[in-house]
């Protein structure tokens, strides 16, 4: 195992930020912590990168204990915190050299590892980090986190606030890093990014809801989900909630995701019910379960 957490808890005053969390990340795995703001993702990262000591529990990263061997861990992991950790008033190349130097290495020594990423920002190497666009900052921060060739890479919400084009590029970079044998623990509030991980932990209010591959988590969803649509969205939601057989009703983009309590649910009956309420252009179609559906079902 590359990362192991056993019954880790951490409180801030009365707030239980992380509540008895255990999971493992295998060597070379791309593992996602998926959850909203305040779920405890950053606290987990800070514990695993030895910046915070847990109240209870044990954790091991790259065979080092997070409390006893904290100095070794710091030499063997890369950490990209949620807010960019770059020095805004140093240039691109100065930032990179700075991080290489404090880890006792040189940019040349590990250039191969960051080449694919760094090459995209190299034309701007004389520019100050503070003047870079969001996507470029992200690439520089990743290069800096990799320059000492870490065994494990921690990325705390690397794609938050980044537009879809940069997000896609970032995930492509992670896949390539994974192929070079680096274990990656990444957190995100975007449920659609879960599918890009080997395994994920769904997390909310400091607790793990489930840990598995994205495919298996979706398979575990107990119900058949239907996409429901009608001419008036607001009324549709109200009437679906009024329908006594509903198990769950959630707006989902242009549709409402509906599940029924009964195993022998007959959509025609529901169409009839909605028509009697005066709705028009009603459609009900089976749809595929998403990670977000599963998350909501587990968090109920």
């Amino acid at each position, binding site marked *: 195992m590359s990362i192991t957490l056993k019954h880790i808890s951490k409180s801030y005053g009365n707030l239980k930020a992380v509540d008895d969390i255990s999971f493992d990340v295998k060597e070379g795995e791309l593992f996602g912590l998926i959850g*909203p703001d305040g779920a405890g993702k950053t606290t987990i990262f800070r514990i695993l990168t030895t910046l915070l000591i847990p109240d209870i529990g044990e954790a091991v990263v790259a065979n080092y204990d997070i409390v006893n061997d904290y100095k070794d861990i710091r030499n063997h992991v890369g950490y990209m915190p949620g807010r960019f950790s770059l020095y805004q008033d140093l240039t691109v190349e100065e930032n990179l050299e700075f991080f290489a130097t404090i880890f006792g290495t040189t940019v040349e020594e590990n250039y191969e590892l960051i080449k694919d990423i760094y090459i995209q920002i190299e034309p701007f190497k004389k520019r100050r980090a503070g003047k870079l*666009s969001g996507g470029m900052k992200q690439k520089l921060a990743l290069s800096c986190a990799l320059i000492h060739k870490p065994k494990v890479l921690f990325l705390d919400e690397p794609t938050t606030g980044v537009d879809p084009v940069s997000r896609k590029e970032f995930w492509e970079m992670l896949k390539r890093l994974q192929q070079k044998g680096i274990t990656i623990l990444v957190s995100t509030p975007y449920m659609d990014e879960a599918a890009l991980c080997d395994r994920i932990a769904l997390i909310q209010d400091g607790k793990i809801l489930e840990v598995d591959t994205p495919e298996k988590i979706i398979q575990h969803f107990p119900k058949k989900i239907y996409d429901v649509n009608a001419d008036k969205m607001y009324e549709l939601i109200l009437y679906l909630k009024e329908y006594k057989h509903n198990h769950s009703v959630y707006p989902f*983009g242009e549709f409402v995701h509906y599940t029924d309590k009964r195993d022998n649910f007959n959509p025609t009956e529901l169409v009839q019910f909605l028509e009697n309420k005066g709705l028009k252009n009603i459609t009900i179609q089976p749809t595929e379960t998403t990670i977000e559906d599963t998350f909501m079902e587990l968090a109920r």
Partner: protein
Amino acid sequence: MKQTNVIKAEGLTKMFGDFTAVNAITFEVKKGEIFGFLGANGAGKTTAMKMLIGILTPTSGDAQVAGFDVYTNHDNIKKNIGYMSQKFALYDDLTVKENITFFGGIYGLTREQIKEKRCQLVEELGLKDVVNELVSSLPLGWKQKLAFSVALLHEPKIIFLDEPTGGVDPITRRQFWEMIYKTAHNGTTVFVTTHYMDEAEYCDRVSIMVDGKIEALDSPKKLKEHFNAASMNDVFLKLARG
């Protein structure tokens, strides 16, 4: 009934020196519509919105918001719109009650109106037990719902929402969208600025800005058909990558 436009922009342009941040955008938003205003970082969304809410004067072009001209009547625009952003919406070191009273006062509501609105709002949002708590102590989801309601205190014709649901848990997010649907159903226009493409899926119509121009404008369904894409995220990727 004839559908009225509450926002009308024609050739709206803003230049900063030689740089054209917003390049002759033309669009209309109807009463009671949920309109998504999308674009990548730096595409010009924020500049365009600042012109629409009356805090930035356009370089050229025309726009009317809630029936008022953006050049000559921005004070009236401000009185007739609400604004909520994820970054700033409420005062963290005031209580729930104090925030409502403060914003009600700013919007020019009378003491009685504020009291009435406050009771109604506290009841609707289930905030009775925390009315005297500091806003900083509330969970993010509650804060957001409260901020949204506060932005609606003065019954504006249009509410501008800046990335309203980023980072919120999925269930709270749905509750928030239900509030948005209700608001639109009651006739208030909802103008959502975002680069979260899944927020775009909830809108009646969306526009997508690329390099200062509106490159696409239609319902999410039609945009997906037109670009042969499975999601708004794919539509965006196709547009941005050419």
